[in-house]
Structure formats: structure tokens, C-alpha cells
């Protein structure tokens, strides 16, 4: 039924123009949130990305790819099917920096600007100047100011608990130095930002009782300010990462969600049957990536041997979905949801299959089919079209 699943994965890297164009369209429709990070080096940009994605910091560092003269990007979890994209303008603090080049590239893409500033660092001349230019280019786009490294105001002391900045920037129980510093920062950035979140994301080795101090406030602020249409991805990612505690699953789930979201994007293309052509490639690439995450590239092929039996049911559903698309308005949303669910279920099925294999018993076709159906049912929990 699905004769060359594994080969389909190669479509991604392949020269098939039509396929690539289709994937690009799908990516566009997948509503991936794009964060534009601005801040001097070592103000905690990587810590923020680490907190939002769960990816190890070293991996984030290696995952950055240069995109403009002064900037780089980190597509999470991978460049093929990114779930979140982080643009990092490293050159922001250089005196010769001109934001024109980055604006040309990012102005339409970026949904939220995240500015990181050390709470006590007042050498912000270049940052303020460039942020002003960037802000003017699209005044409606939310800008969040994160005041980081709060502990520098109270060296060798633990953070005040519970997190006091939930409702006010000037709660009573924090040090005078920090209050005055925050006041100066607020005054400096008042016309440039929409929200200010004091935060202190530290590595465990720093020795703080709460390494993600202010993390919840950050997440809430992002959700409050993200455009509705793309909020869903954040919610989905948050839901899956909080649901699955297992270490390898924590790494696998973002991959599944990212390809499922991409599949949803493909499903949302209002032209009937085009995603029938795209979906197998997306799913094949997902399985190949998952196998890499687990470090067992071979297990992907063996999985396909059994999974091909799922084919009949899958195909029938796909056909039904294409029919729905013909109904204007309803069609593409439903198509997207189904494409998400099927890709999600397939990815989950692979994870369960892989675990079973490791425990010494290869599941038969029937078991796999049951798992697939179960996960398809769960998928709707993670996907609510339109946020």
C-alpha cells in the first residue's frame, strides 16, 4: 500500500520542486510563532529559549544558524518542521549595527519581540536606539521586556518567594536597589515595550532553589500577547511537555508535535488532494527523525513494515477529509485537524512500538492499530484550531 515510506523522507531533501513548494506553503499555514530576541550577550537569551522549548542549552547553541550579517535563528525542534522559531540579533549592541537588514528579513515574520536586559545593567544606549527603530517599523507587534539576573541585586541570597512580581513591578518585599533599578529600566523602555517581566532563569549549578524564577509569568505574558492564530502552538507544546515526563519522550514529543503541526498546515491548504501528496512525505520524515532521536535509524524501516497495514484505514480517512475540503470555510479547518491527528497518532505509535521492541516483544499489527486509534482520539486534546 505504502511501498516506499522510507524513501518518501528523502523528498524533504530532494529536488522535487512541487513537493518543496507545497511544504513551504504548509509551513506558512502551520502558524509557527516567531520570537525576535533582542539583547546584549549573556543577558539570558539562551536561558529563555531553553525554558520555552526544553531543549538543552548546548543543543540550542549548536542549533543556531546564521541568517543575516548580525543575526541567527534557531528553529525548534528542527529546521524541516519548526514548531517555534527564535531569531537572535546578536549585533544589537555593536555601534555600527543597522537594523535595516534584519527588518527587511524579519519584520513580516516576527510575531513577538522579546528584549532581555539585565535588571542592573544600565549601559543600554545601543539597544534603546535600535529597539526604537524596530518598534516604529511595526508598532502593533508586541514587545516584551524581560529584566533578567535579578539575583545580582541580592548576591548570595535566595529569591524572595513566592514570585512577587505577579501583579506589580514594585512589590513591598524586594530590595530597594532592585526597585530603583527596575524603575529606571521602566522609565527608559516605557514607550518601547508592552509588558515588563522580571525573571531569573538560572542553571541548576548556580544553586538557586527556584531555577525558573518568574518562568510562569513569562509564559503567561507570551500567551497574552501572541496573536490568537498562533497561540495554539504554544499551548500544544506546553501541554505535551507537561504531560510527558519521561526523558526520551520529552525529546520525542516536540518532534511529533512539530511534524503534526506542519501536517495540519498542509491540511489547511484549501486545494483538495494536495496534502495527500504532502502528508506521506511529512510523516515519513517524522518517523526518520524520531528514529534518530532514539538513536535507532533501523527501527524506522521495521516499523513501516507493520505500519503499512494501517494504510487502508488511513487512506479512507484521507479521502473523506479531501471531500470535506470542498465545503467552503469548514473544510480546511477540519482537514487541518485530521491531518494533525493522524500524524500525531502515527508518531505516538512509533514511540510505543519502539519502547515495546526495547522490552523484547514486537507488537503485532492489531496492537499497533489499536494504539493508533487511541492516540488519534487523544490528539484532539492538543489541537484546537484557531486557538
Amino acid at each position, binding site marked *: 500500500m505504502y511501498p516506499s515510506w522510507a524513501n518518501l523522507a528523502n523528498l524533504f531533501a530532494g529536488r522535487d520542486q512541487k513537493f518543496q513548494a507545497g511544504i513551504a506553503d504548509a509551513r506558512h499555514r502551520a502558524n509557527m510563532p516567531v520570537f525576535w530576541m533582542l539583547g546584549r550577550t*549573556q543577558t539570558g537569551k539562551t536561558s529563555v529559549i531553553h525554558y520555552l522549548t526544553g531543549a538543552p542549552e548546548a543543543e540550542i547553541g549548536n542549533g543556531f544558524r546564521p541568517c543575516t550579517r548580525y543575526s541567527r535563528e534557531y528553529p525548534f525542534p528542527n529546521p524541516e518542521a519548526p514548531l517555534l522559531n527564535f531569531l537572535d540579533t546578536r549585533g544589537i549592541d555593536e555601534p555600527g549595527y543597522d537594523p535595516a537588514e534584519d527588518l527587511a528579513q524579519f519584520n513580516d515574520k516576527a510575531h513577538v519581540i522579546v528584549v532581555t536586559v*539585565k535588571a*542592573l*545593567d544600565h549601559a543600554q544606549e545601543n539597544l534603546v536606539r535600535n529597539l526604537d527603530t524596530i518598534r516604529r517599523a511595526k508598532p502593533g507587534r508586541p514587545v516584551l521586556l524581560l529584566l533578567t539576573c535579578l539575583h*545580582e541585586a541580592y*548576591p*548570595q541570597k535566595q529569591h524572595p518567594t513566592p514570585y512577587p512580581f505577579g501583579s506589580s513591578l514594585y512589590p513591598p518585599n524586594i530590595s530597594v536597589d532592585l526597585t530603583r533599578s527596575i524603575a*529606571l529600566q521602566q522609565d*527608559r523602555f516605557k514607550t518601547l515595550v508592552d509588558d515588563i517581566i522580571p525573571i531569573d532563569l538560572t542553571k541548576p549549578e548556580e544553586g538557586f532553589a527556584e531555577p525558573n524564577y518568574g518562568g510562569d509569568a513569562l509564559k503567561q505574558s507570551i500567551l497574552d500577547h501572541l496573536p490568537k492564530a498562533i497561540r495554539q502552538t504554544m499551548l500544544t507544546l506546553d501541554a505535551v511537555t507537561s504531560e510527558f515526563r519521561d526523558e526520551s519522550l520529552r525529546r520525542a514529543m516536540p518532534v511529533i508535535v512539530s511534524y503534526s503541526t506542519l501536517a495540519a498546515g498542509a491540511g489547511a491548504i484549501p486545494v483538495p488532494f494536495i496534502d495527500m501528496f504532502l502528508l506521506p512525505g511529512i510523516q515519513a520524515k517524522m518517523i526518520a527523525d524520531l528514529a534518530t532521536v532514539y538513536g535507532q535509524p533501523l527501527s524506522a524501516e521495521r516499523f513501516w513494515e507493520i505500519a503499512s497495514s494501517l494504510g487502508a484505514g488511513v487512506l479512507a480517512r484521507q479521502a473523506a477529509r479531501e471531500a470535506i475540503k470542498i465545503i467552503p470555510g469548514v473544510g480546511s479547518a477540519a482537514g487541518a485537524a485530521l491531518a494533525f491527528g493522524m500524524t500525531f497518532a502515527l508518531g505516538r505509535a512509533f514511540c510505543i512500538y519502539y519502547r515495546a521492541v526495547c522490552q523484547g516483544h514486537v507488537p503485532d499489527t492489531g496492537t499497533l492499530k489499536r494504539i493508533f486509534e487511541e492516540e488519534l482520539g487523544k490528539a484532539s486534546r492538543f489541537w484546537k484550531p484557531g486557538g
Partner: protein
Amino acid sequence: MTRLRLLAIILLIIIPLLFYMGVGAYHLFETGWTFYVWWPTALCFGTAYFLGWQVARRMKTKTDSHPGDPHWTDRDQFAWGMVQARVEKSADLDQEALTQPKFYYDTAEAIAKELSVVYQPGASDPVGPVTIPELLTVIELATRELHDRVRKYVPGSHLMTIDHWRKTQKAIGWMKHANNGYWVVSAVLNPVKTAARYLAAKTTLTPLQDRLQRGVINWFYAEFISDVGRYLIELYSGRLKVGAEKYRELQEQTIRADEGGGGASPEARPVTITVIGQVKAGKSSLINALLGERKAQTDVLPCTDTITEYVLKSSGLPATLHIMDSIGYSHEGADADQVDKTAEVVRQSDLVLLVGHARNAAKQADVNFVGALQNWFRTRPQYKIPPIMAVLTHADLLTPAMEWQPPYDWSAGIRPKEKSIRDAVGTARESFPDAANIVPACTAENRQWNVTEGVLAGVVNLLGEARGVAFLRCLDESANEDRVGKVFEQLWSLGKTAYTIFRERAGK
């Protein structure tokens, strides 16, 4: 008369000894013991030869490794390299020529020509523009220096005449002749034994004599070249415009001030240190920590908006330190005027302390500031850039941030904090490859670490170089301020003379 008496006394002491020597030698010869006695003698001579060789070598290395003066610029160091090359070649020169005064004059002229090319490249007559008083100053300074050194290092030099100098050469010649005569007589008396002894003596005694003689004369020549070279460099750099006296006076005040040891001498010129850094880097806190009291105003918000001078005087310090607290840059409140003012103060200082936050790798503003400073000095080769010492403050905030249990052995320790400090210093080293020194510290009150033993010790280590910078600047200042006055003075005395002559003529 006194000399005759002295000679008589010496002779009266020596004659009996010489007699014993003669009788003893004859006895040894008679009994045939000479052969056995010769071996311990040879051993003594051998050791003496070895020691003499060591002394000669040390003398040579002493002149070779002269590092040049601390206030010299890169161009001066290059010229100094040429002088040193000449010193090295001096070992191969004809020994006879070294005793001729004319040879020294010719050498001085040759060095002057050679060095002038470095300072006036492309000029058709590079030596031409040098003024006569300047040339006289070179001679005065160089000869005075040489004079001091000869008195100090050559024993009995205060009694030495030119005649003696020439005779040293000849005296050694006579000794050789006398020696040869001795061998001839011995050979007639005992041919076989003499042949053996002659061979042994040739390999030990003769080279030792040569070496000692060569050592003193070569040393003198090398010192001569160095001194003439050094002051020619000062001449060509325009630093002798102030005249020999003023030059020496400034040198006493600045460079030589700490050679006396102990605390700062009252006439020693203070060393000016400017503390620079981005806003809130901790400049004022560092100054307070150095002064040991809260004098500079500090705050969690940027607060230093003028340049303030503080004086650090301590019996343990070889100089009084004038510490300038500057305005931090990279602050949207600081206008271009203030940044220019800071740059100006830095150019006028002898030593620069670049203060940066240990946790903040965003040193771009610092790199730019230092780069601009280096460029300013690059276009002015007559000045020397002050040495820059980087201080990384807030070391207590490095990973692990919750821990602060000094002392930390940051250069070799294995605790996580020590490793973090080491990494921070390494990163700073990459940003500032030209920094003379990079020192981590914590300047916060009641958490102080490495301020005295690290920062202050580092400053003291750099005082020599800082004094060199001060010396250059003072020379330039006093040369410029006196120039108009000097011309006026000369015109005045010329006018006076002319008037006197005119009156005398008119009177007649």
C-alpha cells in the same frame, strides 16, 4: 715621593716571598717533584679558567639583554634593536682597534647615521635638522653615564690613565714574551718534561689571559655603543629638546623614583591612573576598595557624571597614586562631550584600569574605546600608550552564584567558582589581547576579594612602565612650554650684546 715609598713597602713585602718562590721552585726541580706538584696547580688554573669564562659570559649577557628604557615607544624599541645588533657584533672586532679613541668617534657617527634613518625615513640628510645643543646633550649624557659605570665596575679606574689603557694591551704582550722565554730555558734543562707541561699550560693559562683582557675591553666598548645609542634615540625622538639638565631632573622624578626603595620619596612625581569602563561596571566601587574607604559615590543607578580625582598615599606604595574616576560610557545619558572628556583624561594618564563586569561578556563598547585609544597613539609615535590593566569586578556573581567563600585560587584551583573565574579571565583575554594584565576581583563592601593582593599589586608591577609614559609626557610638555621663552631669552641677550658693542663703538 709617596709613590716611591709605597713601592718600597710593596717590594719589601714581596721580595722575601719571591725568594721563597725561587728557592721552592728550585727545590722542587732538584727533587724531581715538579711533575707531581704540577697537577694540583693545573687543577687550580683549570677552575680559575672556568670561573673566568663564567664571569666573561655574564658580563656579555648583561649588556646583551638590556631591555631598553620603560618609556620607549615601539619605534624606539626598533631602533634599540639596531643598537643591540651592533653590540653583539662587537665581539668579532679587531682588539687592537678597540684601544684607539678614533674608532669610538667613528662608531658613534655610524650609529647616528644608522638610527637617523629610522626616525627620518626618506630624508636626504637625516642628521641635518638636529640642533647643536641637542648633539651636545647626547654627548654629555652618554659620557656621564659611561663615566659612572666605569667608576663602578672597573676596579682602580680612578687611577687609570690613557697610557695605562694602552699599556694594558702591551703588558699582556710582554707577559707572553716572558713566558715564551721561560719555556725555552726549561726546554734546554729538561726537554721531555717541559714538552708535556708546555702543552698542558697552553690549553689552560693562555686563553684565560686573553679572555680576561678581551672581557674588560669588550665590555667597555659594548657599554659605549649602548649609551650613545640610547641617547641618540632620545635625541631623534625629540626628547632632548629640554636640555641635559632638565632631562636628568625629570628622569629622577619619574623613572628613577622607585629605585631608592621604601616609600614614595617626596619629590617623586605621582602616577596618574584613570579608571574607565561602561556605566555601572563598578569603577567607583573599585576606587573605594583601593582607597579603603567610601569616598567615591556609588549607587545601583549610574551616578558618576564628572571626572573626580582621588589620591592614594601609603607607606607601602613606591609612589603616590592619583586615581581618576571617569564617566561610564554606553549610557544613553552620557553625551559625546563626556566621552571625549574621558578619552582626553585617559590620554593624559600613566596607567589605565579598564573595569568590566565579570558576568557580562558584552565588551564591545570597551573594545571600541580601547581601539580608539590605540589608534590615537598609533598616529603619534612620539608618545607611548599607557599600559592597560583590566579588572573584572563582581567575581562573586560568577557560577555558582549562590557561593562566595574566598579566598579563591583562580589561576589553578579546581572549585567550580575558581573555574568560572578562570574562564571569565580567559574570555576577557580574547577581547583585550593587548591588556598588560587581567585581574578578577570583588569590590562590594564586606565581600571584598583580590583588591590589594590582585589589583593593587598589579598596579605596582606596572609602575615602571607607567613612569615611562609619565616621563615622555612631561618631557613633551616642558619642551613645548619652554620653547618660546628660550627664543626670547636668546634674542634678549643677543640684543644686549649688540647694544653694548654699539655703545662702545659710539663712545669711541
